[in-house]
């Protein structure tokens, strides 16, 4: 598979310059804009009540603040709406990682009876676009949703004043005693893999098998302070709850990941991890125009468009 250039977006500080884009769906400004319109288009739901943005609210870093998604006719889904942050770097999609590409993934909620509840022919008829075009446009828009340039990124870049002493202490625990980097690694704070953290283990059984053994994909921690509640089922309301959960070693079960074990963190250590996690809020860029960057983020940009301007594909010959 050949990946082509993401020429139409600017990569924020802290993210990889190389943004994988499938050869069959090159990223263009036109397609991103088309995808943006579709993303907010309520015609894509059976009763015209919801759009993609209903569960992936730009004001909440493209999550929805509810434990589980709510679809047409107030139908409740099974899982929490994941934040659509930096999904262009993703390797699999949905909480259980069942989709390999964004192009496949974006059509599924439209067809899910508990979400938008349309058949693809119906969706095609409503917006006047073939399903493939809907797929490519929505995937392109999602690919353009990028978060970076956070205080953490500026700290890594060498600005030692970008993180407070407590945030730096939290970072040290995040990487060390907390063992968070066993899964939350790299620029996007995820290993993009499936893990059984025990969260699906209820009353001696798996309430949700996830990918099969109670395992779910590691979510990004970018913008994490804006995407409560947490975990695949939204069962933990706050970041403090999440830290407590992991500190006690999760819910023991036969498939529990070897990395999940009691951490014995002190109260101060727990607090500092949470303080550190809040510094992962940065700039959320969507679409092609950096003026659309979400200024509601708690931290102003140090420098918009930190990475050099990209070349068009044709410049590579």
């Amino acid at each position, binding site marked *: 598979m*050949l990946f082509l250039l993401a020429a139409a977006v600017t990569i924020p500080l802290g993210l990889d310059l*190389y943004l994988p884009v499938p050869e069959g769906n090159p990223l263009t400004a036109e397609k991103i804009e088309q995808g943006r319109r579709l993303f907010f288009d309520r015609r894509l739901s059976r009763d015209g009540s919801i759009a993609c943005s209903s569960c992936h609210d730009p004001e909440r870093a493209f999550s929805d603040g509810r434990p589980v998604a709510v679809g047409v006719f107030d139908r409740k889904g099974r899982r929490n709406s994941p934040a659509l942050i930096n999904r262009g770097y993703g390797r699999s999609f949905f909480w259980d990682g069942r989709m390999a590409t964004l192009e496949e993934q974006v059509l599924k909620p439209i067809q899910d009876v508990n979400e938008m509840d349309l058949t693809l022919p119906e969706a095609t008829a409503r917006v006047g676009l073939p399903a493939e075009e809907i797929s490519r446009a929505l995937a392109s828009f999602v690919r353009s949703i990028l978060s970076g340039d956070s205080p953490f990124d500026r700290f890594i870049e060498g600005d030692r004043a970008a993180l407070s002493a407590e945030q730096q202490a939290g970072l040290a625990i995040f*990487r060390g005693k907390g063992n968070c980097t066993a899964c939350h*690694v*790299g620029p*996007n704070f995820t290993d993009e893999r499936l893990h059984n953290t025990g969260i699906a283990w209820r009353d001696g059984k798996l309430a949700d098998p996830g990918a099969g053994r109670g395992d779910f994909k590691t979510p990004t921690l970018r913008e994490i302070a804006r995407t409560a509640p947490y975990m695949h089922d939204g069962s933990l309301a706050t970041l403090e709850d999440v830290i407590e959960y992991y500190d006690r070693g999760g819910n023991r079960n036969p498939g529990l990941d070897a990395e999940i074990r009691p951490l014995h963190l002190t109260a101060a250590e727990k607090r500092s991890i949470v303080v550190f996690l809040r510094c992962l809020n940065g700039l959320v860029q969507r679409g092609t125009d950096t003026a659309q960057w979400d200024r509601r983020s708690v931290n102003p940009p140090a420098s918009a468009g930190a*990475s050099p301007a990209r070349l068009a594909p044709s*410049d*590579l010959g």
Partner: protein
Amino acid sequence: MNRCTAGILAAIAAILLTVPAGAQKKTEADTMFEAARQKETLEGDLSGAIKQYGAIVAKYGKTDRGVTATALVRMAEAYQKMGNAEAQKIYEQVVREYADQKDAVALARAGLGVQAAPHSGGNIRQVWTKFGGSPYGPVSHDGRYVVFTSYLGPGGGRTGPQNLAVHDLITGADLVLTKNESPVERPGKPVFSPDSRQIGYPWIVEGVSEELRIMELNGNSPAKSRVLFKTDDLFRARDWSPDGKWIAVGIRRKDHINQLGLVSTSDGTLRVLKSIDWAGSTQVYFSPDSRYLAFDLPSSENGGKRDIFVIAVDGSREVPAVIHPANDRLAGWTPEGKHLLFISDRNGRPALWSLPFENGKPQGNPEMLRPDFGANHDDYLGPTRTGELYFSVLGGGVKVSIASVDLESGKSNPATMQQFTNGIYPAWSADGKYLAYITYQDGDARTFLTIYSAETGQRRELRPNLTYPTWPSWSPDGRSLLVPAGDAKGRWGIFSIDAQTAEVEPVAISGPEEPGFGTPQWLPDGKGIVYERGRKQGGDGVIVKRELSSGKESEIVRVKLLPNHGVATRGFVVSPDGQSLAYLTSNGTPAHTAIMVMPLAGGQPRELLKVTEFVYLGGWTPDSQSLLYSRNGTLPGDVAAWLLPVNGGPPRKLDLGERFATELQMHPDGKRVAFWSNNQTAEQFWVLENFLPALTAKK
């Protein structure tokens, strides 16, 4: 480039390292040769170079036979690289018409010899053997210089503070480039600038920071350098772009993610191109047009095999280039940038392969350029701009031996000696039935364990999913082994390996700011382990005990390590009765190292032996009354075995029948000793020449 050509180069090239810039007045012929070399070596334009050499012949043909003969030889060599039969005619012309130009004639004869040989993917020759250093390259783009690590330690071994040095393959001269006397600072592997007049290299201050420094090679020692880029993460310089604008670096972040990035040579800014998971790249090469970076990645977390990818330097695209179940090691690009070179064992044996690559994509299938190439290669130092491929080979080898020895007389019985090649760090199980040791395998970067049965003589492999396990220590029940190692997520620590299934469990993981742990050992009662924390070169270490039931850790003793003991030797050993701890320490000066012994439960340490030389601590005798150790012998490279009674009496030398015997481990029967011997006296530096015509011929 062959040896004779190198000699001609010596006569005509500006000698970068031994003559300060500007000190030598250039003649017009020099300038013309330089222009031709520019075409040939930097631009890879052999046709252009041939024209330039032709111009020299035309200009000096009637006035300067020496210059003319030299130009003809160089022209022939350029033709030879292109696989053009014109080379033979020109060589013959030199032999026939320039008999008074002895160097040129010698070169021409050598060239004719190469021409006459049947073509089988080039010819290989050794260009240098380095004793007591690490010729880890790279080679300059004109194939003249190679950078190596120079050690200041005693005995010519790899001990003591490290410095960068450069070896001139033509004159044989060495020049130390840096002046470092600190045990906690060291250089990393450098890269050459496109004109080979500068190097970029990491300067590592252990546990503090790493800098990318640029140094002009102008013949001065130490040479001046400037800091281009600084980080508190780990990084390695990988390649310098042919257009001079970027230095490709591999960065290992504190969350253990590896990244491939570019540092601007103009302002030192870093652009991260790609984050590449827990495992990183080992080989990265710019394409000759500077537009692409080829790099390798492990094909999975569970094996040492690699695949090869190419990413555009502007981050715009990436393409898998060599994806195959075999182990594919990147070796670089051909000078014209139309082929990737790699070593692959896809046909059962390592061989040199090429993959056509144009317009940002692979074109067609790989073809074998040379069979049986790469089995014993340590590292690839990159092809030169003229198409020679340099590589290093470890000379000699390491092996584990088991010798029968009479501790009273100190004599061993050579007739009963057993030896296992490629083995290091032997360890007997408590019942003496098994010997575990670490094994290196040619062509495989990963090490594994071998379990030898002293009863049946059978050996089996144990391949845990760990990187670089060392110093195995058997659990008292013989069911598992402790090792310090790295795991699949790039973390370093102590791991327990199931002796039957090779399943791995972490026992202690070091923090991101913490150096790795040293030499973990089981307590004989099986209730705890002892290991070293904070172990790094020239630093202070702490020997700690951990109770396995509670995880409680307690400090036993603090030690100070000498620079020349570093992290590569055993720092302590627990007695078989579990009562005593022997360890190495120093007062911080190179002239004072001591073997100490103290009660494991705590108490006053006693100095058993004070030495002023390199010491390897071994194991105890089964009765816990004596220690085994090794120290430098009287001859260079000798490391002799000794027995040291802990309750008085002088040390006694043991004759184990090997000049180099370390990590002495006594069998519980007190009659056999296992040890690791190293006759790896040198690293060899080789070059594969004239293999590109095979590529041309295939086309």
